[in-house]
């Protein structure tokens, strides 16, 4: 298959008009010793039919979580996605366009992103949000760098319960800037040890990172932490789950300085973990230091409302080495998907998603409690919680898989203190009571009739 449209005769004519007698002449600056010898060894061209069948075969060689009974979470969730999202994203006006450098012919993208920013600002109750980041972990890493610049210090405190994958990303970003990351431990109910935190804070602390709910699904006492952090003069960075924000107090209300989060829950397919959608919102005074693109409303020379990129002097294409971040291409189309998702469900539908997720999680918790399954951290969670299954997480997960159930994430390797029996179970609105019963039976060691 070729997508080149020039014919041989076009090429001949063009070479002639260019003033060369062969294509080779155009390669004159490339020493012949540097040239590739022969054809690239990646196989012959495939026809469209062959591409479709090859990719079809690869897709079929997978068993998708979305088609099973999935309790996998840990940052990526199996949620219902309305058809409108797929429809809007299928419009090539959106998916084939570039970054809106020519605002006059990019008002579609610009307004959509402006609306996305608005939705994120409202969800988080923050002053403003940017146009998107790669994912939550890199957004968090950038927030950490941002805090370090604002506070001109190099210490950051994170919860020991933070996802190890997120921590790894923080580490690789911190290394270059010599930022030291300290961990504050968690107490029996899985939330952070406020006492320990108080002791760790100092004028050297640039920021404290708080995940709400945390990786174990537990709801932190954000007001208390916020008080401690601000007393110490540090910034509070919150890593928030967006769906939880329909039911849980938004970070702006407990005075968070920077809020980041993962938008995959907002209508984005799981897609083996990417693309994702990092969001980042901040208080106004910090906007000049924030990474990424910002879209602003403004007027054209006729006084007509329009949208444009703004505060670009923060960005690499203007400021180069003085930029607040190196981010350029972000997750524009994914941000659009999130807006379409939120707009489609709307105020009530989105709340219903959160409500169903939380109430189903709570119902499962109740069932497990009744069945005598051990639940180390208690009931103060949103939609995800830890269970411990005697016999080991791996065996339990394998047993469940045989019944078409993805039971959860084993935690022992990442959090040895929780032991090899600990499993993180996520419940979304897609699960039914029957699904919950099946998982409960499996966890309780019963056969569990489907």
């Amino acid at each position: 298959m070729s997508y080149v449209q020039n014919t041989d005769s076009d090429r001949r004519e063009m070479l002639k008009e260019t003033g060369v007698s062969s294509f080779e002449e155009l390669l004159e600056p490339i020493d012949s010793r540097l040239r590739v010898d022969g054809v690239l060894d990646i196989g012959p061209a495939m026809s469209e039919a062959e591409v479709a069948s090859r990719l079809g075969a690869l897709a079929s060689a997978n068993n998708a979580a979305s088609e099973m009974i999935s309790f996998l979470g840990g940052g990526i969730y199996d949620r219902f996605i309305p058809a409108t999202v797929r429809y809007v994203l299928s419009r090539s006006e959106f998916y084939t366009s570039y970054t809106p450098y020519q605002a006059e012919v990019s008002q579609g993208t610009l307004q959509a992103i402006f609306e996305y920013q608005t939705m994120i600002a409202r969800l988080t109750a923050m002053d403003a949000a940017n146009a998107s980041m790669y994912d939550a972990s890199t957004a968090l890493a950038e927030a950490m760098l941002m805090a370090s610049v604002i506070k001109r210090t190099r210490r950051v405190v994170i919860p020991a319960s933070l996802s190890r994958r997120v921590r790894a990303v923080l580490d690789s970003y911190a290394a270059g800037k010599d930022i030291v990351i300290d961990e504050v431990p968690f107490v029996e109910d899985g939330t952070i040890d406020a006492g320990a935190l108080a002791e760790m804070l100092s004028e050297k602390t640039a920021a404290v990172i708080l995940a709400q709910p945390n990786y174990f699904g537990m709801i932190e006492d954000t007001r208390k932490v916020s008080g401690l952090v601000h007393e110490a003069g540090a910034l509070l960075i919150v890593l928030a789950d967006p769906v939880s924000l329909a039911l849980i107090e938004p970070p702006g209300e407990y005075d968070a300085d920077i809020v980041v989060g993962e938008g995959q829950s907002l209508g984005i397919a799981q897609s083996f973990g990417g693309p994702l959608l990092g969001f980042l919102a901040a208080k106004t005074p910090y906007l000049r230091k924030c990474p990424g693109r910002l879209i602003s409303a403004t007027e054209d020379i006729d006084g007509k409302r329009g949208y444009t990129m703004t505060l670009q002097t923060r960005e690499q294409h203007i400021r180069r080495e003085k930029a607040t971040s190196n981010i350029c291409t972000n997750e524009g189309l994914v941000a659009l998907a999130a807006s379409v998702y939120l707009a489609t469900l709307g105020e009530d539908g989105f709340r219903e998603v959160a409500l169903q997720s939380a109430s189903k999680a709570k119902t499962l918790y109740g069932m497990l409690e009744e069945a005598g399954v051990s639940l180390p951290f208690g009931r103060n969670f949103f939609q995800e919680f830890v269970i411990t299954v005697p016999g080991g997480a791996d065996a339990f997960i394998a047993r469940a898989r045989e019944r078409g159930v993805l039971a959860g994430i084993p935690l022992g390797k990442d959090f040895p203190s929780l032991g090899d029996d600990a499993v993180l179970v996520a419940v979304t609105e897609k699960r039914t009571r029957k699904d919950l019963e099946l998982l409960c039976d499996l966890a309780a060691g019963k056969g569990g009739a489907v």
Partner: protein
Amino acid sequence: MSRTIFEKGANGRSGNFLPANDCPVDDLGFAHRREGEIGLPRIGEQDLIRHYVELASKNYHIDKGMYPLGSCTMKYNPVINEEVASLGGFAGLHPLQSEDDVQGALELMYELESDLCEICGMSAFSLQPVAGAHGELAGMMIARDWFRRRGEERKTVLVPDSAHGTNPASVVICGFTPKTIPSNEAGLIDPEVLKQEAGDDTAVLMLTLPNTLGLFEKDIEKIIRIVHDALLEQAEKGIVDYPDYLFDVGALVYMDGANMNALMGIVKPGSIGIDIMHLNLHKTFSTPHGGGGPGAGPVGVLEHLAGLLPVPRVVKKDGRFSLKETSGESIGRVHPWFGNFNVFVKAYAYIKALGGEGLLEVSENAIINANYLMKKVARDYDIKYPGRCMHEFVASGRNLKKFGVKTVDVAKRLLDYGLHAPTVYFPLIVEEALMIEPVETEKKEALDHFADVMAKIAKEAEENPEILHEAPVTTPVRRLDEVAAARCPELSWSGGECLPMEE
């Protein structure tokens, strides 16, 4: 102007998307409840679809016409790629499913990595970085850790003045200090200048090939040699300890491979001594840009650096694929999972469709198109670096200055003709720059049309510059007040309130 979705959905009704809840909602058992409304719209599905279709109609896009944004490689995005990427067997995968359930996905990633290795002559690729700049950062981290593991804390990264803005920014984010290498009159790196700038503290030379002027560094062998030699002396003195196979590797050469569209089947960077590079799948490999992402910026390295690539790595054993989570030397992670998998599917489909000869045909036509168009545009615009170009070239509007016309005016006028503008005012080393990349999927006829319009505009500049100052007039909005927006940006819809910025 389209009203915002908040206005359109202020008091409406949304549809019903979820089945009735089969669990009780009375006892959610957690504290810290949100009070009050979020402020999301309530809009019916018909009005919602109309809203986005209306917005769509206000975008320029590849399916509308030529998109000659220099450096951005806006080529055709085949529809079959979108189809296969949306297959449920790909879209529905959770990254923590068991390896048995994701063999197809792992195979795809494995094969894509090895195809990229073959195309670039690198030893190993990691698909983890999700954009070009992210790939640069990962590459810089690799360099950083490589030196650190050898007990060195080299701080300087040499960056040509023509480099893309992300290059110096990535250098800084990674903790290095960029040092600018000026281009010579030919628009190239001067080996003599480089020799002077490269020193003990030099960790990396970060160059773009072809560079952002669309020129191939004709002294590339010498350049690489100089950089590699910058440490060689010490290696020979035994100060640092290099494995044998690295006998001639000193400081590292990083190649920004976003311009790889010009080199497929022509030059393999790894084979000529590039140590680290990244690719932009959303440029070279035809995955769409989405109005600002998602992208994918795989980072590739030569053998001596392979252990430093981000984890996990996909490995193959006895026909089965698995994920290797740790490596002693790895820089760790730049993404929590495997990168933008959905983008890989499209790039994979594209590479398979084209095959080895097809990729060469891409680069050939990218180069032919650029040279042909340069020749035509040169009739009416200045070309600071004439001669041969690769896949793009930089014209200049400075010859129109005498009529009071700036490059931005030319760009805006192009919009009135239903075309997209080139990249303007970049690279910085060309005054009034118009960076033009026609890409290989445009055919001669489209290039002729573009050149004709450019000629018409040059004539308008002379005869009636007002038209250009007024442009655009046919677009959904006209020139926007960016100054007001920067002074007091309105970053979210609240009926017109903005956030005053302190200076």
